[in-house]
């Protein structure tokens, strides 16, 4: 869920979101440096390119909104800290490709690079004991749907849309993408697990 230019126009809010992102990203980068070597950088580049291409495919909906799948769960379950870095690269690239906004980059980075991977990871952890497939589906579904709710709250704070509009219109649209995301997460994770099990460390546990 990208917030385009002009949908949040208050400079104070834009600066606050950017500061929040920079602080959290600094903490994540610090963790990443401690746990990884230079050898893991090519995988980050590979994931960034793959996710950027997949996110360029837009899903048609009967509402004039830009929606696509994001593969957040797959990346978050591979490596939580790496997913923050990958989604930072992807979100910045997308902003310059016309998806999302450059002025709203701080909000989009906070939502997509910080909040989303953590929702995906912890939703999977919460449900994996019940059933692995269900956990994968719910992880993809909950991430996208909750991002819709978070974006609705941000729109309300910015005064763009009322909260009722966000929760009754934006969130259900996001939930539909969440279903597609959930199903694709199961298919891709199972396929990856068969072909390259080292890319799905959570499924090996």
């Amino acid at each position, binding site marked *: 869920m990208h917030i385009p230019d002009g949908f949040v126009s208050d400079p104070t809010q834009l600066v606050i979101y950017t500061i929040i992102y920079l602080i959290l990203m600094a903490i994540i980068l610090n963790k990443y440096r401690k746990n990884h070597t230079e050898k893991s950088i090519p995988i980050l580049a590979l994931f960034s390119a793959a996710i950027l291409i997949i996110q360029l495919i837009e899903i048609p909906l009967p*509402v*004039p909104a830009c929606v696509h799948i994001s593969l957040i769960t797959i990346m978050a379950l591979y490596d939580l800290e790496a997913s923050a870095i990958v989604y930072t690269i992807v979100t910045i690239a997308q902003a310059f490709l016309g998806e999302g906004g450059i002025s709203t980059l701080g909000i989009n980075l906070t939502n997509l690079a910080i909040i989303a991977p953590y929702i995906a990871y912890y939703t999977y952890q919460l449900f994996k004991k019940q*059933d692995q497939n269900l956990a994968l589906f719910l992880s993809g579904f909950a991430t996208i749907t909750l991002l819709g709710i978070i974006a609705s709250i941000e729109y309300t704070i910015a005064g763009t849309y009322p909260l009722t509009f966000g929760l*009754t219109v*934006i969130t*259900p649209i996001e939930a*539909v993408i969440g*279903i597609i995301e959930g199903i694709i997460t199961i298919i891709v994770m199972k396929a990856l697990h068969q072909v390259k099990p080292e890319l799905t460390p959570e499924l090996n546990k």
Partner: protein
Amino acid sequence: MNYKTILIILLIIIVTLIALTNALKTYEESDYILDEDTEEETENIELTTTTNTNNQINTNITTTQNKNITI
């Protein structure tokens, strides 16, 4: 895949589709627009209006010139 998993996924799909139907109705009835390109469209409309106004001014000038010629 476990049948319970399939059942839960189907239930989520049905509830989401009901919510989407309601969302589309609410969107049609509301005054808000979700389109990102609205500003560009407005600019285009403004540009067209300006062009039309210029054309009208040009036409008026031509008419005046013609009248002058006639006179």
